[in-house]
C-alpha cells in the first residue's frame, strides 16, 4: 500500500492528513504514536516520526508533553483551504491538457462536467 | 573470573561428553575386566589390566572436542579466546582432580579387597600408578591434565589447519623426537639418558609430565590466538 514514488515519511504524513481532512480524525483527538505507526505500517520508527514532524511543523498537529500528538484546532480547515488552492494545479490542469489532446473544446467540457457532476452527486459541500 | 567459571559451566552443559561418558566407559571396561577375571580358572601372577588407559585416551578426545565442537558458539557468546581457553582449562583441572581422586579411592579399595577378590589390578598401573595413594593421586591428576590439554591443542590445530594441519602437527612432533634421538647419538648421551630414566622415580616422572602440560598449554594458547570461527 505504500508506493515507491514519494518518500515514506511523506506518505505517512499524507495518510494522516487525509484522515484529518475527511474528518475521521477529529480535532483534539490523539494521533497514533510513532511506535504504533511503525508497527502498523511495518516501517522504521524514525520514518514515522519524520512524517509526524512534517504535520507538526505545518501546524496541523500539536504535541502534549508526556501524552502524545493531537490534532490541532483548525487543522481540518487549514487542510481543506490548502487543498482547494492546489485543486486547480493537481486536478484541473491535467484534465485540461488531456482534453486539449483529445480535441474536446471548452463547451463540451463544461457540459461533461455538469452531466457527470449529477452522476457523482454534485459538488462537494 | 566469573567469565571463566561461566565457560566451564558452558562445557558442563554437555554432561554426557565430559562426565557420563568418561566415567561410564571406565566402569564398562572395569566391568568387562571383572567378568573376564571371574571366568578364568587361575589368577595369573602379573595381572595388570591396561583398561584404565581408556579413560586417559577419552580425556584426549574431550580436550579436542572442547576446542572444535564447542568453540564457535562459545566465541559467539562474546567470550574472548583467552577466556575461552582459560575457562576450559579451569574445567579440565577440576575434572582431572575429580577423576584422579576417583582413581586413588578405587585403588585403595582394590588393594583392600586384594584385587576385588579376584586378584585383578585395574586401578593399579605398573610403575606409573603403582605407589602409595597420594602418588597415584598426583600422577593421575597430572597425566589426565596432560591428556586434556594435549587434546585441546590438537583440536585447535584442526580448527586452524584442518586435517592436513593435524597430520603435519603429528609429523612435526615425530621430527622433534627424531631430532632428540640424533642429538643423543651425536653427543653419545644414551648412557646418561638411561641412567636418568632408571633413577627416575614416579615423582620425578610426574614432574616431567607437569612440564609437558605447561608446554602443551602454552602451545595450545598460542594456537588459539588466531583461530577463527
Amino acid at each position, binding site marked *: 500500500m*505504500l508506493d*515507491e*514514488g*514519494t*518518500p*515514506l*515519511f511523506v506518505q505517512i504524513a499524507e495518510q494522516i492528513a487525509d484522515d484529518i481532512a475527511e474528518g475521521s480524525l477529529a480535532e483534539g483527538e490523539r494521533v497514533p504514536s*510513532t*511506535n504504533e505507526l*511503525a*508497527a502498523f*505500517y*511495518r*516501517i*522504521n*520508527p*524514525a*520514518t514515522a516520526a*519524520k512524517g509526524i514532524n512534517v504535520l507538526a511543523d505545518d501546524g496541523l498537529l500539536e504535541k502534549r508533553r508526556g501524552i502524545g500528538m493531537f490534532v490541532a484546532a483548525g487543522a481540518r480547515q487549514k487542510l481543506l483551504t490548502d487543498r482547494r488552492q492546489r485543486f486547480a494545479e493537481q486536478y484541473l490542469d*491535467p484534465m485540461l*491538457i488531456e482534453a486539449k489532446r483529445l480535441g474536446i473544446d471548452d463547451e463540451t467540457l463544461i457540459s461533461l462536467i455538469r452531466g457527470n457532476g449529477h452522476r457523482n452527486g454534485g459538488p462537494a459541500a | 573470573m566469573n*567469565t571463566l567459571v*561461566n565457560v566451564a*559451566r*558452558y562445557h558442563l*552443559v*554437555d554432561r*554426557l*561428553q565430559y562426565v557420563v561418558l568418561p566415567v561410564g566407559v571406565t566402569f564398562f571396561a572395569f566391568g568387562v575386566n571383572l567378568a573376564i577375571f571371574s571366568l578364568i580358572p587361575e589368577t595369573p601372577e602379573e595381572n595388570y589390566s591396561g583398561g584404565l588407559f581408556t579413560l586417559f585416551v577419552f580425556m584426549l578426545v574431550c580436550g579436542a572436542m572442547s576446542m572444535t*565442537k*564447542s568453540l*564457535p*558458539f562459545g*566465541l*559467539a*557468546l*562474546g*567470550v*574472548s*579466546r*583467552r*577466556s575461552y581457553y582459560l575457562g576450559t582449562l579451569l574445567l579440565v583441572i577440576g575434572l582431572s582432580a575429580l577423576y584422579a581422586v576417583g582413581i586413588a579411592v578405587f585403588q585403595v579399595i582394590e588393594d583392600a579387597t586384594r584385587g576385588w577378590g579376584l586378584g585383578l589390578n585395574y586401578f593399579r598401573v605398573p610403575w606409573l600408578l603403582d605407589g602409595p595413594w597420594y602418588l597415584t593421586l598426583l600422577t593421575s591428576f597430572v597425566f589426565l591434565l596432560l591428556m586434556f590439554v594435549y587434546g585441546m591443542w590438537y583440536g585447535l590445530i584442526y580448527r586452524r589447519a584442518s586435517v592436513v594441519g593435524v597430520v603435519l602437527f603429528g609429523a612435526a612432533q615425530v621430527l622433534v623426537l627424531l631430532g632428540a634421538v640424533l642429538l643423543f647419538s651425536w653427543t653419545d648421551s644414551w648412557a646418561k639418558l638411561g641412567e636418568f630414566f632408571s633413577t627416575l622415580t614416579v615423582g620425578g616422572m610426574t614432574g616431567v609430565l607437569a612440564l609437558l602440560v605447561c608446554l602443551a598449554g602454552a602451545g595450545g594458547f598460542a594456537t588459539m590466538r*588466531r583461530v*577463527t*570461527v
Partner: protein
Amino acid sequence: MTPTISTTGLTRRYGDHTALGDVSVDIEEGKITGLLGRNGAGKSTFLRIVTAQEFASAGSVRVFGETPVENERVLRRLVLVREDQQFPDFKVRHALSAASWFYPNWDAELAESLLRDFDLPTKRPIKKLSRGMRSALSITIGLAARAELTLLDEPYAGLDAVARQLFYDRLLDDYSAHPRTILLSTHLIDEVADLLEHVVMIDKGRVVLDAPADELRGTAVTVSGPALAVDDFVAGRRVLHRRKIGSRASVTVAEALDPSAKAKAKALHLKLEPLSLQQLMVHTSNGQTAEEASA
C-alpha cells in the same frame, strides 16, 4: 556522537581473493542500518570481523570506540546472529541457558515468547532441528540478548515468508521498545527496505552506497513511453539501463526528478516508475560489472 562501528580501509584477503577491499564506513548509534549486497559480496566477512570472529588483513575496526579483538568489554555489548552458527551438542534450552549467563541484558521472557512464536521445541537437540528452526533459534538468542549492538547476518535462512514476517515484526517491536543499534545484512532487500533508516551496500567487497534510506528512495527512475519522447526526456541525464520494444522505450536514469521534470514527463505522456531499493542494488552492481567490462 561516536559511531558504534567505525572501519577504516578494512581489507580481508583469502589468498588471491579479496573478500573486503578498503571498506571505510561508520555505522551510527541507535539506527537500523541495512548491509545490502549480493551473495558473496562480503557482508558476512564484514560482520565477522566486526565481532572479532575473523581477523582483518589490513585496516582497522573500532566498535564502541575500541578494537573488538579479544576485548570482552566490547564483545559483551554485542551479539551476532549467523545463519550458519555452529552449536555444540546442546538441546534448544541449553543454548538459551548458556546465552543467559553471558549476556547482561538477557530477557528470559522475551526468549520464551519468541520460542512460542517460532514453535521451537525446547527439549530437542539442535542437531535435529531443520534449517529454518536453527535460524529461528539464532534469532531468538539474538533478540533476547538485547545487546546494544545487534548484528544479524542473513538471519532468515530456511524461514518461510510467514516466519520471516514474524521475525521482522518482532524485531521492529523490540527495537521500538528498546532502541539499539541494529545492523542487518540481507539480499532480500525489498522485504526489509521500509525498516531501514540507513543503507550500506557492498558489492565485490567494496562499498558502493552509503546513505540514509530516505535519500535513496526515488534516486533512480524508469521512464517509459514512446521512444522518441523518452529519448528527448532523458537526454543529458545519467542513464543506467535502456530497453526497447517496437516504438516504445524504457530507460532507467540515476537521478531524482524535480517537480518540473515530473511535470514535463507528464506533459509528454511518459510513465515514471521510481526504482525500489532492490532494483537500485541490482542496477548498481550491474553498473559495476559493466564498468569492469568496458575497462
